């Protein structure tokens, strides 16, 4: 325990859990992905298309098409053994086909990220008191918290989005707020989606945090109370700092879930990544290419999130806490 050996074994455990995220190739890809995104956003949002016109890709299609054609011809000339070259040709064809759509998709990625980050962060603020109520609350608060989680976990997110958007006056209220829908600030549908994700993911997050709180040994709170801390202070200064660390792996899962489920916001017209993909696909009928492309972008987001969470977990790691047996 706590020897250098145990720290390294903790690290290998985590790397194993993350799967691909420890490979240099993955890191490189993620780096390229983010560089592209940041340059794109800066150009489109901040510089008003100063570097390159909006909706025009940074990358020319020509060379990729040429490469695909050459490789295709090469594959054909190689006959039956040419199939790896053929695959490569297909890959370049795919790239050439994808390039024109990249700018629009980058805008969609921005909305997806914003939705996810706001949803999970605001949800977290609800989830912590909710889980504390579940673990330490009296019977009434416990029941209330249980009711909340069961309700939001038991019904489809799609239905929650629908009810909030079409059946409550939420859109009217948000619409009337100053600045909504102007300039940088997205319109009401986006905010309704954020509220839905907040409410929904709070329920899931609270479950992860609850089980993490339960895994903090009871003796910790007893010891806190024994030095004169009140129950609330004991929870705040002793149980939560440990429980939240235990909760990181589960919480990371929820983050990944939310990245992907944010695609449901397209249902209420939010123009996030899936909605953009779908819109282009229904215009061009290039379903396969576009959804593979969207899948890759989501995957890049998910892997980035895992990397960030791994880093966070590492940064807040304390010898002997959470790294063993999980």
């Amino acid at each position: 325990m706590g020897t250098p050996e145990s720290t390294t074994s903790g690290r290998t455990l985590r790397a194993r859990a993350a799967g691909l995220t420890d490979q240099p190739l993955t890191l490189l890809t993620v780096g390229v992905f983010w560089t592209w995104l940041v340059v794109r956003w800066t150009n489109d949002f901040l510089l008003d298309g100063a570097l390159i016109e909006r909706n025009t890709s940074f990358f020319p299609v020509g060379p990729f098409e040429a490469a695909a054609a050459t490789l295709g011809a090469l594959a054909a000339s190689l006959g039956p053994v040419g199939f790896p070259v053929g695959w490569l040709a297909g890959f370049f064809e795919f790239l050439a086909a994808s390039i024109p759509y990249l700018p629009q998709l980058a805008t969609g990625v921005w909305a997806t990220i914003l939705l996810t980050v706001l949803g999970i962060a605001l949800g977290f603020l609800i989830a912590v008191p909710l889980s504390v109520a579940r673990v330490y609350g009296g019977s009434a608060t416990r029941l209330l918290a249980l009711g909340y989680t069961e309700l939001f976990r038991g019904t489809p997110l799609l239905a929650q989005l629908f009810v909030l958007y079409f059946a409550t006056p939420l859109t009217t209220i948000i619409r009337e707020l100053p600045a909504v829908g102007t300039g940088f600030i997205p319109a009401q549908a986006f905010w309704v989606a954020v509220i839905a994700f907040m409410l929904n993911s709070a329920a899931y997050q609270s479950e992860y945090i609850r089980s993490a709180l339960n895994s903090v040994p009871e003796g910790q709170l007893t010891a806190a109370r024994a030095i004169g801390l009140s129950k609330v202070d004991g929870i705040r200064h002793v149980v939560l700092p440990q429980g939240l660390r235990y909760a990181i792996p589960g919480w990371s899962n929820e983050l990944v879930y939310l990245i992907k489920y944010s695609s449901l916001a397209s249902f209420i017209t939010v123009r996030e990544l899936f909605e953009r993909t779908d819109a282009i696909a229904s215009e061009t009928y290039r379903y396969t290419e576009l959804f593979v492309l969207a899948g890759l972008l989501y995957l890049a987001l998910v892997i980035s999130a895992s990397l960030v969470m791994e880093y966070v977990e590492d940064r807040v790691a304390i010898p002997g806490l959470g790294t063993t047996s999980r």
Partner: protein
Amino acid sequence: MLELDDVYKSYGEEQVLSGVSFEMDAGDVDVVIGPSGSGKSTMLRCVNRLTEINGGDIYLDGDCITDADTDVNELRKQVGMVFQDFNLFAHLTALGNVTLGLRKVRDMDKATAQEQGYEHLEQVGLLDQADSYPAELSGGQKQRVGIARALAMDPKLLLFDEPTSALDPELVGEVVEVMRDLAAEGITMLVVSHEMGFARSAASDIIFLDDGQIVEHGPPEQLFENPQAARTGEFLSRLETAHEEE
């Protein structure tokens, strides 16, 4: 200093303490022994009200501390506790463990708290380990941090619940040593422990608890050499089976 007067405690149907009464003076070191489940831990926990009693009274320095209007957090500042499993705050360093109470309960500023924290760590011989996390400490070191944490609140009375029984045999010595030092400094202690060496050499009185009742209570020489109750003798002999001929 501390007085238990006819204390009763039950968990549901189960009667755990049935009329426990004893007194100890400032500077006393009383050692409680007894079979597993006899209520030793429960008795300690009643004294700092980690557990509420069902009958009787407990007095600390003449004040009844089992009144409904006693401020338990105030009480617990005066009664320190050291646990069998240490229960160190796993997310804090040794120093953090010692200073948390100072800062959040005594509202000290960080610098003063740390200064005092270092003093108490020195008292238990752990100045070098101030920045180590619990998982990086040996059992004996953990328990000494636990003692320093309790001492930091400057309590009138220290409670120990089997402070050495989770330790490797050769680490027991270092903790017993610290406890002996505290006894020599005149700190009042109520200790649940089966470390006979410590009991014989440092205890003012031994209290033998069985089935929620005090069966025998007296100075170590008398209780060990010449137990009055049959049950005391029987228990002591069972304790020594494994160590016989030693």
